[in-house]
């Protein structure tokens, strides 16, 4: 950037952060968590602050807002809003800035709203705080704010509580609340991370419209380089509390200067990364015996209520799903939250009641007691999403990995230690770390421990339920590589349950797309990704942010609806979509002329 444009930038910068340094008090004295951070945000501009967990991007926004936790404090620097340094304001003065000049929305729309206040009351109090409006005038303004974020049935929403709304609707409420103060700057901290991809696309589009219509400057904090590519005008990349690179979005993706940025961009799973690459589908080969055969799997949960606790409603979680998993293949189950993909995973190990037929290694598991299920469980193991919650914090990681061997009476004493050490080496961990506890490991290491534990019984199938979703992209890439290696070495089959289409494209051989408890499309990866037949698959793929600003789509027409609910009345009989054969083991639930 030349000196001239730099100066021009400063003049129209609405928010100018200079040399911001924040430290946190720890038991070993104060520790700097963001160091000398400077950037500007101009009116009508979207600045993305990108980085992995612990990079200091959220702390930066909290420092600007004066919302740091008591243990942290800004040590030095300036935060200039239209030329006035916010760091010199007292708490009372900051109250007018917060929600007035600068508004903020957060990652978790589920927990960011007060559960015992109506949506209307929460909007009205924000309006009252900054406009001094009360009563019906404030309510009218609240309704306008909801309409501005294109909330359906806005009038009814005012008297509803947050738990009655979907995640996307709650984030709309948050945005409406933020906009009600007519802010000059909107700070959005991972606003779509907790949302489904189609909902994410809607919210991002909404933010772009608001920027255009109101000229709001947006500081968008995200870990998702796809979101960066879709949204940013300029990008600040943070790592370890410092800015490593700051560029216009096109330049950043085209010619990243810093080595960290380069690594980060390389690690990002790109939708279309395997375009044109044919997969060897196990399903297509004749005479292959499936390791897992699912036929007409149906899972329904009753919701009880009334005087005698009789069932009043029914959740149709999975409806007549049939699929095969072949040895050595990765079958991805994709779909949005509530589509039933995790339920299938749980059914395979008999963790929930289901009907239909599931054969594992040729043996029917329907109705098997847990005693008879035990030997089958050796063949099918689970790796979950949250490696923090999946490991008992009071056991050493060596005990955790060895526990299945003890339960199944497969090893003890010195042999046990040897086998655990071998498992550690296999997942790329040093066996010397066996005596440590889970909290001493990073997220990626913990997920390796979970994988080692799953491998301990020598399974043939691993159900990976969102196993890389909680990990940073660079770590995610490593874990995906590990899964690939293990498959090549051990001939494992993966049922890879995920909402992330880019990751799925990278790892899977075949893909099954689920919608409302049914498979709407299933086929080889290349066919599903490059020639999707079902409209839902097309919508899902279309909604994925593309980590390439050159391919940014501005003219997309997004469906505004919500995903329909799987909860139905008791007499509801679901219509089962018939799968049409598109050839080459590619099926989709649509009628095709000429197809049989």
């Amino acid at each position, binding site marked *: 950037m030349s000196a001239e444009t730099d100066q021009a930038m400063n003049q129209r910068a609405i928010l100018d952060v200079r040399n911001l340094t924040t430290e946190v008090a720890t038991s070993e004295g104060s520790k700097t968590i963001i160091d000398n951070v400077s950037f500007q945000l101009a009116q009508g501009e979207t600045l993305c602050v990108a980085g992995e967990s612990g990079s200091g991007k959220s702390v930066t926004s909290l420092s600007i807002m004066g919302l740091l936790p008591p243990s942290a404090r800004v040590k030095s620097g300036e935060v200039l809003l239209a030329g006035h340094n916010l760091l010199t304001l007292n708490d009372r003065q900051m109250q007018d800035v917060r*929600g007035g000049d600068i508004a903020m929305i957060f990652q978790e729309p589920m927990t960011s709203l007060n559960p015992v206040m109506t949506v209307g009351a929460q909007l009205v109090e924000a309006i009252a705080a900054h406009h001094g409006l009360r009563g019906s005038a404030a309510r009218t303004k609240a309704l306008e704010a909801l309409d501005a974020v294109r909330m359906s049935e806005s009038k009814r929403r005012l008297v509803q509580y947050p738990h009655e709304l979907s995640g996307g609707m709650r984030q709309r409420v948050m945005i409406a609340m933020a906009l009600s103060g007519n802010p000059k700057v909107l700070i959005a901290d991972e606003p779509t991370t907790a949302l489904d991809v189609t909902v994410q696309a809607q919210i991002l589009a909404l933010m772009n419209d608001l920027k255009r219509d109101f000229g709001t400057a947006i500081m968008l904090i995200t870990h998702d380089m796809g979101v960066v590519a879709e949204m940013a005008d300029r990008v600040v990349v943070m790592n370890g509390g410092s800015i490593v690179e700051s560029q216009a979005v096109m330049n950043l993706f085209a010619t990243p200067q810093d080595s960290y940025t380069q690594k980060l961009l390389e690690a990002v799973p790109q939708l279309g990364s395997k375009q044109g690459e044919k997969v060897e589908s196990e399903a297509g080969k004749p005479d292959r015996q499936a390791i897992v055969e699912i036929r007409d799997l149906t899972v329904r949960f009753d919701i009880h209520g009334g005087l005698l606790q009789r069932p009043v409603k029914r959740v149709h979680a999975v409806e007549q799903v049939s699929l095969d998993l072949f040895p050595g293949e990765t079958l991805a189950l994709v779909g949005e939250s509530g589509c039933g993909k995790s339920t299938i995973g749980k059914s395979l190990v008999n963790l929930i009641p289901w009907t239909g037929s599931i054969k594992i290694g040729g043996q029917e598991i329907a109705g098997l007691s847990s005693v008879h299920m035990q030997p089958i469980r050796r063949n099918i193991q689970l790796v979950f999403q949250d490696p923090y919650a999946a490991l008992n914090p009071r056991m050493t990681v060596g005990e955790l990995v060895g526990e299945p061997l003890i339960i199944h009476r497969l090893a003890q004493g010195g042999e046990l230690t040897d086998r655990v050490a071998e498992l550690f080496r296999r997942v790329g961990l040093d066996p010397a770390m066996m005596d440590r506890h889970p909290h001493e490991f990073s997220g990626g290491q913990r997920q390796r421990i979970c994988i080692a534990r799953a491998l301990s019984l020598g399974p043939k199938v691993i159900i990976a339920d969102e196993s890389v979703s909680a990990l940073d992209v660079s770590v995610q890439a490593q874990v995906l590589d590990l899964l690939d290696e293990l498959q090549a070495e051990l001939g494992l089959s993966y049922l890879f349950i995920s909402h992330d289409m880019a990751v799925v494209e990278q790892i899977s051989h075949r893909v099954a797309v689920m919608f409302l408890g049914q498979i709407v499309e299933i086929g080889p990866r290349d066919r599903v990704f490059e020639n999707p037949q079902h409209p839902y698959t097309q919508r899902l793929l279309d909604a994925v942010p593309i980590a390439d600003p050159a391919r940014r789509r501005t003219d997309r027409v997004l469906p505004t609806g919500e995903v329909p609910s799987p909860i139905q009345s008791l007499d509801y009989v679901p219509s089962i979509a018939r799968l049409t054969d598109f050839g080459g083991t590619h099926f989709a639930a649509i009628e095709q002329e000429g197809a049989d």
Partner: protein
Amino acid sequence: MAAYLFRRIVEAAFILLGISLVTYVLLYLLPADPVRQIAGRSATQETIANIRQQLGLDLPFYEQYWRYLSSLVQGDLGRSYIQRSEVSELIAARLPASLLLMVAAIFAELVMGLTMGVVSSIRRNSATDQSLMVLSFVGVSAPQFVVGFLLLYVFAAQLGWFPIGGYGTFSHLVLPAMTLGFMGAGWYSRMMRSSMLNVLGQDFIRTARAKGLGKARIIFRHAVPNALLPIIAMIGIDIGIFMSGIVVVEAVFGWPGIGQLAWQAIQRVDIPIIMGVTLVAAFSIVMGNLLADIVALFVDPRIKLK
């Protein structure tokens, strides 16, 4: 709602049935003999046998219990062995005093406890917080008769602000209610403190701050209502703890409630009164719980009737 209430009341009936059985069994197994209490030391074998037969105590256990139950469902709690009057009348005469004391004590403990808890949580780790928590620890651990005598000594005997004992006016009520409420206040201040700290760390508090709301509004409109949710369920359970405390406090302050009635009855093995008081106490605990659940229903929109 009506269906829910009906179901809860049916549940309550079963609970009371269970409690009556357990109490009856315990009293039956008790080595003390009510007949000897009534007849006195000098009574002849014949008199004792007569009384035993009169009271039906010579019958087998299940028959005794069945008789008791049959009259109970007709609303008849029986007659006191010693006082020779209807148990229901004895209880009815004393229940209002106990209920008054209980309501006053709950009010006292909530006002003291919740205030202490809120102040502690927003002044976390300060000297105020620490001294309040020490005070609450004293409240939880000090025996009620000690607290009662202490309050009597200071505020009645020395300062003369309140009467030493008795019943009738508001100033009679203050010290017993404070004594009974002091322990609960200790409990509630600790619970409220931790509940508040939990709520203050939640995302929606950060949202409220990000909206630019003032401190007072954040605490009283956002934090306190959410922090109260787990407390409400506790208040229902608390009535049970009160029931045992009330015996001691009524004795210390000469308060004419059912606690005193129960205490005298236990000394004299007056089974109908013990049974009656136990059932009334159990009934109020069950009703207290139901009331707490209904209140929670109105405070927390997420709770659906089950």
